[in-house]
């Protein structure tokens, strides 16, 4: 066999072998990975919408508007009887060191905040990272979509910018969704589910 053919053959065998190994491992691991992600999501939504026992994701096919224009992901929470109890939405906003991903639960029909959870952030450990702490996020529970949350939420000492960032994110998105999305949601309710 010429050396050129030998080179190509070696490359092909190694590549195909690698591809096969990866495909097999992927098929084995992927279900578990998705399972973890689903569990995390259910856990988080349960934390911000305590009354919801199940939830469905809002896709643009199901509703009259485009969910992605409001948030990264929107979920409709239902209680045991299938009634809608609230919305949970994942939004991203600018923080001090980078983007902050927040999950906000909004209870219906009052548009009050059911809970807030910081999902991802790159804030300073020990300082800005304290936005994860319960006492800070619990302040949001029960607040209305007034658009003036910055006056009602205490910031964290030594982490003014990070905590203000979260407050602004929650404030802006809750206000916007209460004003613009909820009215459109009425259409969804009457339709099916």
């Amino acid at each position, binding site marked *: 066999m010429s050396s050129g053919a030998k080179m190509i053959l070696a490359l092909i065998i190694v590549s195909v072998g*690698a591809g096969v190994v*990866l495909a097999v*491992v992927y098929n084995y691991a*992927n279900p*578990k*990975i998705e399972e973890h992600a689903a569990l995390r999501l259910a856990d988080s939504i349960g934390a911000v919408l305590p009354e919801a026992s199940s939830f469905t994701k809002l896709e643009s096919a199901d509703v009259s508007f485009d969910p992605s224009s409001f948030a990264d992901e929107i979920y409709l929470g239902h209680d045991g009887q299938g009634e809608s109890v609230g919305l949970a939405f994942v939004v991203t906003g600018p923080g001090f060191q980078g983007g902050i991903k927040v999950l906000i639960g909004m209870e219906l029909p009052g548009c009050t905040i059911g809970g807030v959870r910081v999902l991802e952030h790159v804030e300073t450990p*020990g300082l800005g990272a304290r936005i994860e702490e319960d006492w800070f996020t619990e302040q949001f529970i029960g607040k209305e979509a007034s658009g003036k949350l910055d006056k009602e939420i205490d910031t964290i000492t030594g982490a003014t910018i990070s905590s203000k960032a979260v407050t602004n994110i929650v404030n802006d998105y809750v206000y916007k969704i209460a004003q613009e999305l909820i009215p459109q949601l009425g259409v969804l309710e009457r339709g099916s589910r």
Partner: protein
Amino acid sequence: MFADLVRGLWKENPTFRMMIGMCPTLAVTTTATNGLAMGLSVAFVLVCSSAMISLLRRQIPSEVRIPCYIVIIATFVTVADLFLAAFLPSIHRVLGLFVPLIVVNCIILGRAEAFASKMPVSRSILDALGMGLGFTMALVILGSIRELLGFGTLFGTRIMWEGFTEWVIMILPPGAFFTLGLLVGLINWLSTNLSKGSALRLRAGRRAKDGTASVHIHRVGSGQ
């Protein structure tokens, strides 16, 4: 044989002596646990790729060896990444981008080139194991220091006393650079002085033997 294993632990420690594979070393050593996880992942990829490359060393033509090595290494890295994501998701999230970056970790390609492509499988595995353990050791040391001073904990358990104010800087990028720099300096100093000590003892022994009274003022070997 045993020498193959021990080499990577001290004399040719990838982090402190050869100064390779620096990126994950600085990035993920915010806690000792993270350092341990990254070190073991690299060790896993190192051992598997070295073994595979050594096994195939006579089959792969020299001209295409680098692309072949890269594919093999990338495969094992993807396997490690998928494994972590499936079974240790919280660690996977912390290590983040640096798991796939193991693909370009100079340690692995370097060992493949320098050793695994020329040596039998058993020796390659020992060499890889030594390097991997040496790397893990370095990462755990670095991670422990940063965690202890930056969080006050070690492997998650609180060690420092109650009133201790955490040195947050240790967890941030500058802390990583400072700690590693000082550690490298310390290790250099240690290895210079350890060899100085043994050479001095040797010299004293020789003087006693030939009984001369002359004083030797002699600067003993410089390390770096």
